[in-house]
């Protein structure tokens, strides 16, 4: 069996995927197809491991790790059938830069929502330079799909053959045709903005502008089916400041203190919780231990 390629793609695109192609036959690989037509069986991700938690039991551990990239968060799960990955995950000390190869997975609870995750095969601690290189690779890859999808949108209907005639290789051409059939017309503007934002992340001249509001304005996270995206009102920045100032011993700011300090700034408890959720999603803060928040 030919080894599956390891896709470099952003969590922002991966987590939008709701289509899984089960492999026909015994050992045929399965794929998660993204709205831009990436047919993903294996991924290679370099990002910030923000937290690791045993969401299983002591007897049957199931380790969950969150890995942030400039566009969102990947979720990693490793259980007893991934002993090597589990062993590595259980020993990680977040935050840290991690390089992960793994297999694409989806989980669909009764509500019908599709959650994508990664079942890690290999995890290694790396440095920031490699993370930046990965972002560049993911940008190249995203750009290629954006261009191919733009071509596909000019066809009615797009076909594999027509795309391949334009130089799109077979796996992507096939993925694009499947994606169009499942998702309809992809929002190219949104993914182009995602690409631009990831590129700016690499460039020091844009770094001053990287306040959370600016980031939020550039890449609005995909609207979750059950709730409308809220416009940011500057509360995230305020909460981030609170968390930073309260983290005196380096172990993270205690929840009670954050609540009190936020109240003093006129932020209600519900708004605070929402702001923290958004900060968690963006990978700007994490929860080192239950009840404490820490800036990354």
């Amino acid at each position, binding site marked *: 069996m030919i080894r599956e390629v390891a896709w470099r793609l952003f969590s922002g695109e991966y987590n939008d995927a709701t289509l899984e192609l089960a492999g026909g036959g015994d050992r045929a690989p399965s794929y998660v197809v993204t709205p831009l037509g990436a047919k993903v069986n294996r991924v290679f991700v370099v990002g910030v491991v923000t937290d690791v938690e045993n969401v299983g039991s002591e007897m049957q551990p199931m380790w969950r790790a969150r890995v942030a990239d400039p566009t969102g968060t990947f979720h990693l799960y490793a259980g007893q059938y991934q002993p090597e990955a589990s062993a590595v995950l259980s020993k990680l000390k977040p935050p840290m830069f991690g390089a992960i190869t793994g297999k694409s997975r989806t989980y669909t609870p009764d509500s019908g929502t599709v959650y994508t995750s990664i079942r890690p095969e290999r995890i290694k601690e790396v440095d920031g330079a490699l993370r930046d290189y990965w972002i560049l690779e993911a940008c*190249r890859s995203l750009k290629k799909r954006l261009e191919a999808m733009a071509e596909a949108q000019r066809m009615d209907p797009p076909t594999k053959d027509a795309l391949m005639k334009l130089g799109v290789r077979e796996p992507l051409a096939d993925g694009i045709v499947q994606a169009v059939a499942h998702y309809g017309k992809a929002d190219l503007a949104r993914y182009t903005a995602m690409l*631009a934002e990831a590129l700016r992340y690499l460039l020091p001249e844009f770094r001053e502008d990287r306040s959370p509001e600016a980031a939020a304005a550039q890449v609005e996270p995909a609207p979750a089916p059950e709730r409308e995206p809220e416009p940011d009102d500057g509360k995230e920045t305020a909460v981030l400041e609170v968390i930073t100032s309260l983290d005196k011993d380096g172990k993270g700011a205690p929840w009670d203190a954050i609540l009190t300090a936020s109240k003093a700034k006129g932020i209600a408890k519900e708004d605070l919780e929402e702001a923290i959720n958004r900060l968690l999603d963006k990978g700007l803060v994490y929860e080192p231990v239950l009840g404490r928040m820490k800036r990354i």
Partner: protein
Amino acid sequence: MPQERDIVKEELATHVRDITRALGGKLSEQEIEKELSSYLNVYRVSLDTAKRSIVKKHGGNPANLAIGIGKTVRELMPGEQSVNLLVRIVSLNEKDVSVEGGSKHILYGILGDPTATVPFTAWEPLNGPITRGDVLRVQNAYTKEYRGQVQVNFGVRTIVTKEKPDALPEVKPTPGMGQPYVGKPTAFDVVDLREGASNVALTARILSVETREVEVEGTPKSVFSGVLADGTGKSQFSAWKDFSLKEDEVVRIEGAYVKTWRGIPQLSFDERATVTRLASDGLPPASKLGESPRMWVEDLAERGGGVDVTVRGILIDMREGSGLVYRCPECKRVLRKGACRIHGEVKGNADLRVKAVVDDGSGALTAVFNRELTEALLEKTIDACIAQAKEAMSTDVVRDELADILVAQPIEARGNVTSDEYGLMMIVQEAKILKVDVQEEAREMLEGLEGSA
């Protein structure tokens, strides 16, 4: 179509019966015979077309025709719907291809009879195992054209039966003794050369050439082989006739054919070919053409490999058997638990190597780094590694150190890439850990985005 002219009456009668059966007895044999004769002799279409047309004309389904047209490989044309062959399997491979809704296991290779050889693909499982050298009677195969060459396909309607080996005289293809080509040669760039292409025309610069003496069927023969290149890539070549090829000259070769060695396409040419010398400035200089072209793994996979290519990717995993290994002194196989698979327990010779998965986002290949390269990457000699392993009482320390240094690193590797059913493999000649100016490329890409917005 000369091959149709000599169809004997007796053979025609079987086709008449075939048409009658396909039409369910709607027409009498006499009527069909008359009609068939008119198609063949008045309209001069091929027997296959004639049969199908008659069945269609009378409301039948041509798929019900059971008897194909017997042909020699040489007579095959593209677009035959139903053809019978008596052939020997010259080469046989298998692979999995992805098709609508999953993957499919197919056989492919080359078929031959005394007249010629032709590539083939079996898209459906055959009813028994076949191997190289088997003589097959093939009924109802169909043909297509691919890159100017006829290809034979076995589909659902095709029946394949094994014949005795003496049903077909064994023909050893002698280099230089092939059938002359018919028609104009097809122009190729080096990067587009694929197994089985014949009557190829190509303009390239000879980068190197040497004479080798080989024995063909007991007689010594000189073969002139080396490396040639155009702007698109490099290829090894073998000339079976002395064209007095000289290093650095630019030549136009017409009437060559393509063979593969471990998946890598190579150009071969013989008496049938013509070589014309061209002005040297028609192609970039040898120093430029000699550079190793940077290639994507997906393109290498599509071609089946490449000569002296450069790949940039991330070393995403190290395979089993990397690090300090011990080899059998007899056969050089790597020992497992102190024993050779063939020679049993032996005292092995130490060696150092890395077998790694290099993935560039378009595909993955296995890259094999030899001892010198591994020593350079480790910045340590094999003796130091042996001492280290002795102290730790395990060779794992060497492997772990290599993994620390290499895994997840972007690397550039140069070498020959071969392929088999497990995928691509590069025997690395040069390798370095890549340092990329991330900002420069990001800035360029961003400007491109904003420019187009």
